[in-house]
């Protein structure tokens, strides 16, 4: 490949609120730059994991390189870096942005600015990216481009009068976007002769090549044979291959130099060695200091994952090991539950991340899982002065040994139309939110600012928000820190036996209500047995709620004729099968889904 003129490279990303058309615009850009024919285009080329396509969201950052012949007659290389769109992956977003020189802000012509739009724009501006807006979905009957343009100018302060008015779906005015990329996004800088300084913005494990590191070269040049070093993790390796991103494929090349985006492989065995945000340098001629912004990613949400069939424990371990090769933010360690047997306590970036991992385990690895209620990390100050991080409620020390407890707090921004301000404030109140303020973005839309305990929003807050605003509210948050809080462990006793897998940490004031609803829920989930089964909720050994599963008294298939025998056997087999999906707790058989029922307590849904 001939050396590339830096002035003809454009490294950019697309930022948008979910569903505003980011992936569709990416597809159109790839299509219209002619790298691929329409026939080769699979819908949404960038989202190459099945799950991403199904959910319509981007989980891992991806990149693609295309060639655009501009109206000035020159060919430009576009490196489009796709960013994850969900708050769980905020750090990954920030690293992807850092790999770019500019960003296209996509705003839905009907919906206008949303909470995530703002969060992402601010993030992009923090990284000194040149941001230009495009108004998408102008062909919708409800489109109000002029209103949205004004909103962008008023709220964000971006010049938007000449923003392209496009429909990514129907390919309207995409050419204007392409010209804007050339004109508005600056070319990269940096010298190919300086010591190597490259930013890792993603990595991928490949069973043949080892880890494939996605990087943006800031300074210097990397080629086959370069001895590289990751400055944060300290891992060293010799580069085997460098290249750039075709559509869905890796295309090897001679070298990557300052300003370019591409990949390198170096027989690295584990993605842990190639942390997102780390700086790659030449071990023999290192740069002076790493690029700013590297952060070790911490799990925010934890839950226990157990194989439904205890014998599948090794399979679950192998599957988690494989997933972790590709996902450095997934944490897991073995744990044992009295009720559920051997499993793992797993840590995730957020609930979406948890759900994705759970689905991949079930789908790709064919595992049937029992998942315990997700929780956050609490800080427990012992009377001894020691501070412990608590990820599993069962490990909570005896109350007499606890001086106090702290829980993580997030600052949240909620964008909502004025008619729903009331219900949303009520919701935040119920979730122990602290009101910080409200700003009107425009006449009938406001941005609410709250501080909320993370454990109140991890499971169903987003659903509740949507249902109480008829889908109009949008939400974004970041971790603020820890605060002292009156927390207790709520225990559930089934037939007088404490079930460790059902325990969870809850604020003292909600304990009674949660306990009562848990008991009601479990009463419905647990089938009748030969004996009566009390279900109790307890805090510090004191029973605060109780329900009873009545004893089974009659289970007869009275009517049965000769012709029914095959059918009768099927019924009995079904009954038997049902038993297999049960967990034995003492003498009580508890259905596996009961362990998840703690998640679904918001009866207002």
């Amino acid at each position: 490949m001939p050396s590339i003129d830096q002035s003809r490279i454009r490294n950019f990303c697309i930022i948008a609120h979910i569903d505003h058309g980011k992936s569709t615009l990416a597809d159109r850009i790839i299509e219209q730059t002619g790298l691929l024919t329409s026939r080769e285009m699979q819908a949404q080329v960038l989202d190459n994991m099945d799950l991403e396509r199904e959910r319509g969201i981007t989980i891992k950052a991806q990149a693609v390189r295309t060639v655009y012949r501009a109206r000035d007659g020159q060919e430009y290389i576009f490196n489009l870096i796709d960013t994850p769109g969900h708050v769980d992956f905020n750090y990954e977003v920030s690293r992807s942005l850092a790999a770019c020189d500019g960003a296209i802000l996509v705003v839905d012509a009907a919906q206008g600015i949303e909470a995530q739009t703002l969060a992402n724009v601010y993030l992009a501006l923090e990284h000194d990216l040149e941001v230009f807006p495009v108004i998408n979905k102008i062909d919708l009957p409800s489109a109000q481009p002029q209103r949205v343009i004004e909103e962008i100018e008023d709220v964000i302060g971006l010049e938007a009068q000449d923003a392209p008015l496009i429909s990514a779906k129907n390919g309207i005015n995409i050419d204007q976007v392409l010209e804007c990329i050339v004109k508005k996004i600056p070319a990269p800088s940096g010298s190919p002769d300086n010591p190597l300084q490259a930013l890792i913005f993603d990595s991928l494990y490949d069973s043949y090549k080892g880890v494939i590191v996605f990087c943006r070269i800031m300074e210097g040049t990397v080629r086959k044979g370069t001895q590289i070093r990751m400055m944060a993790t300290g891992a060293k390796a010799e580069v085997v291959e460098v290249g750039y991103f075709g559509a869905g494929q890796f295309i090897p090349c001679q070298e990557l130099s300052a300003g370019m985006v591409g990949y390198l492989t170096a027989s690295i065995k584990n993605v842990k060695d190639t942390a997102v945000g780390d700086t790659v340098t030449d071990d023999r001629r290192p740069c002076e200091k790493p690029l700013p912004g590297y952060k070790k990613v911490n799990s925010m949400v934890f839950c226990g994952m157990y194989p439904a069939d205890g014998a599948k424990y090794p399979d679950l371990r192998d599957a988690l090991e494989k997933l972790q090769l590709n996902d450095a933010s997934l944490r897991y360690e073995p744990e044992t539950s009295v009720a559920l047997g051997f499993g793992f306590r797993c840590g995730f970036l957020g609930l979406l991340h948890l759900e994705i991992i759970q689905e991949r385990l079930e789908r790709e690895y064919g595992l049937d899982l029992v998942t315990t209620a997700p929780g956050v990390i609490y800080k427990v100050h012992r009377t001894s002065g020691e501070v412990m991080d608590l990820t599993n409620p069962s490990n909570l020390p005896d109350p007499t040994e606890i001086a106090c407890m702290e829980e993580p707090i997030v600052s949240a921004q909620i964008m909502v139309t004025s008619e729903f301000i009331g219900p949303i404030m009520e919701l935040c109140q119920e979730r122990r939110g602290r009101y910080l303020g409200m700003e009107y973005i425009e006449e009938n839309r406001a941005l609410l600012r709250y501080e909320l305990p993370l454990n109140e929003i991890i499971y169903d807050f987003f659903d509740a928000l949507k249902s109480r605003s008829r889908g109009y509210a949008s939400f974004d948050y970041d971790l603020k820190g820890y605060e002292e809080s009156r927390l207790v462990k709520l225990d559930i006793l089934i037939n007088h036996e404490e079930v460790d897998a059902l325990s969870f940490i809850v604020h003292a004031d909600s304990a009674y209500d949660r306990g009562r609803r848990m008991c009601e829920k479990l009463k419905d989930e647990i089938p009748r047995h030969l004996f009566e089964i009390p279900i109790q909720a307890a805090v510090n050994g004191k029973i605060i709620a109780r329900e009873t599963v009545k004893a089974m008294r009659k289970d007869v298939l009275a009517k049965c004729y000769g012709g029914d025998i095959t059918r009768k056997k099927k019924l009995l087999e079904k009954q038997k099968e049902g038993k297999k999906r049960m967990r034995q707790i003492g003498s009580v058989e508890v259905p596996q889904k009961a362990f998840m029922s703690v998640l679904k307590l918001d009866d207002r849904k």
Partner: protein
Amino acid sequence: MDCEEKLMEIYLHIPFCVRKCLYCDFLSGPADKKTQEAYLGALLGELSGRSGEYAGRKVCSVFIGGGTPSAVDAVWIRRLMEAVRAFYALQEGAEVTLEVNPGTVTGESLALYAGAGINRLSIGLQSAWDSELALLGRIHDRARFEETYRLAREAGFSNINVDLMSALPGQSPESWRGTLRYVTGLTPPPEHISAYSLILEEGTPFYEMYRRGELEPADEDTDREMYEFTGAYLEAQGYRRYEISNYAREGFCCRHNVGYWIRRDYAGFGIGAASLISNVRFSNGRDLEAYCRDPLGVREQVQRLSQKDQREEFMFLGLRLTEGVSERCFAAQFGRELEAVYGDVIEKFVGEGLLEWSGEEPPGGGGRFLRLTARGLDLSNYVMAGFLR
């Protein structure tokens, strides 16, 4: 219970009735005379066409069920029985049952049935109260039943079953007690009583009404109260409960039904009819037209039972009989001791008070039987499911 072989039973299905009841999920419905005759002709064809398959077997019982077999011209019952006798070795003294419903028989038709060799009648009464009969969508009332019953006795039938149904929507325990008292007060009282709890089956109008909230099924406690009363009351009236839902005077157990529970071979004729022959289960298809075109060409769902299947059936079917399953028969059939195969399950249920041993070891007695306790009868599904591995 004996472990007989080479005997078989015959079931003839007549899928016609005057009007389909609201709770009924059997393969039956009203049909015009032409359809009926085409079908009955085909049924005769199947009887004759299959006789070779069952050569060398003695037929110990015949059951003509439906539907309402008495809804078709009685001459056809005679023709069917003639075919059975002509093509099969019907044992001397075999039990020959016909299902009839009140309002579909006359003194004349009953005489014809008797002449055809029918020696047992099963009459669908269900309830002694006209309001409940109307709710069920039955075509008869109590007076009609009384007439049928009297005519049957006059025609010489000395082995009569009456079908009853408890746990009807809105039924009070008192009304159920009334039905039982009424039936046992008949002169002479029936030799056999079948008493079932109503089951709301998917696909029936009742089920739809229930789903729309128009029908309140009997609550558990009421159902339970009726069920308990049934057992106690009928035993006191001289009936022995020999199967989960069947009661009989001494010597009047339904041999045909017992055959199902002890896994005697049976051949079913007509649409949807099931068979068990030499440990193969199969049935005829349910399509009436296809059957009429080729009654020998609609056999389907052929399932060869493995040893394990057979053992499981032996247990869950055998346990329906209050006598239980014979340890000796099990060993004779499967070459393994009952407790060697199911020791853990038996121990569990015996421990829970749901199963018990009865009978005496030889030489003193005929060997031990494993049977459901009174509580086990109430929870029989739970116990039976335990025998499936």
